[in-house]
């Protein structure tokens, strides 16, 4: 049993301290993945909150078929796309304008802006694969499982993402 498994087992027993540890361990990953899909900080925070509530409620259902991080990122993706579909249907008015999507609330303006812009310019499907592989270090199989696509498609999307990114950065 890994440290993550033990932590989740405690969360399943409604242990708030364990839940806080789990939150501290995964909140940044969840938020950044949601932000890469939604590109709006306030929506990414909504997704973080809903994802963590889903983890709290569903901790006992986790069967360990994937890594805990992969499971949580899968929930994040579902929550983000559900929200995106709702936004597109006009269920909710945006709270911030488009410029807020690239704002930097932590003030870390020293980020590699060229890379940031190149990532923003990628098609959604390529951007999420790039994020999962280069940032979250997921294997081909893990990324395929999370995205619900064949491993060949993961490699193909990653290949095109690299070509597009290289072109943007040239």
């Amino acid at each position, binding site marked *: 049993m890994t440290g993550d498994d033990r932590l989740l087992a405690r969360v399943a027993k*409604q242990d*708030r301290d364990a*839940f*806080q540890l789990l*939150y501290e361990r995964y*909140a*940044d990953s969840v*938020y*950044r993945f949601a*932000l*890469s899909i939604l590109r709006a*900080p306030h929506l*990414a*925070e909504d997704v*973080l*909150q809903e994802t*963590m*509530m889903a983890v*709290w409620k569903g901790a006992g259902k986790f069967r360990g078929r994937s890594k805990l991080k992969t499971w949580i990122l899968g929930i994040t993706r579902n929550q983000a796309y559900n929200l995106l579909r709702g936004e597109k249907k006009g269920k909710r008015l945006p709270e911030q304008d488009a410029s807020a999507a690239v704002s*930097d*609330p*932590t003030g*870390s303006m*020293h*980020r*590699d802006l060229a*890379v*940031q812009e190149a*990532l923003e310019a990628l098609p959604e499907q390529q951007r999420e694969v*790039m*994020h999962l*592989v*280069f*940032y979250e*270090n*997921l*294997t*081909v199989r893990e990324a395929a499982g999370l995205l619900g696509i064949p491993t060949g498609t993961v*490699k*193909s999307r*990653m*290949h095109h993402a*690299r070509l597009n*990114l*290289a072109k943007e*950065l040239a």
Partner: protein
Amino acid sequence: MIRCETIERWLPWYASGQISTRKMQVMAEHIANCETCQTALAKVIQLRHRVASSLTEAPVPTTQVWESLTERLPEAASAQIDLGSFLVGLNVGVAAQRRNAPVRGDLRVLGHRVRIIGKHKKGA
């Protein structure tokens, strides 16, 4: 003999070590003898480094998220005393809760709960 096109598709995972030992060995042998794949690998490593660095510096969530989340969690009783008789279906419970340590008192009659001390919580 593994082809350059196949190697090329696996380079992102080779660069991060996220492939099997067997595949790693096969790829390493090929790359050691192939200038094209060496150049491609160098580009992948550089790109991976730039993307990972950029995302590592990406914004983090505000502390408000955690605060809102704890508001949504069910209240956990840190101490609870129940007095009464289950046989006649009447008992009085007093519980001190963790958040702001409020004291709560309930009168339970035949499975129905009536709050007699403390505020009613929405959805409780």
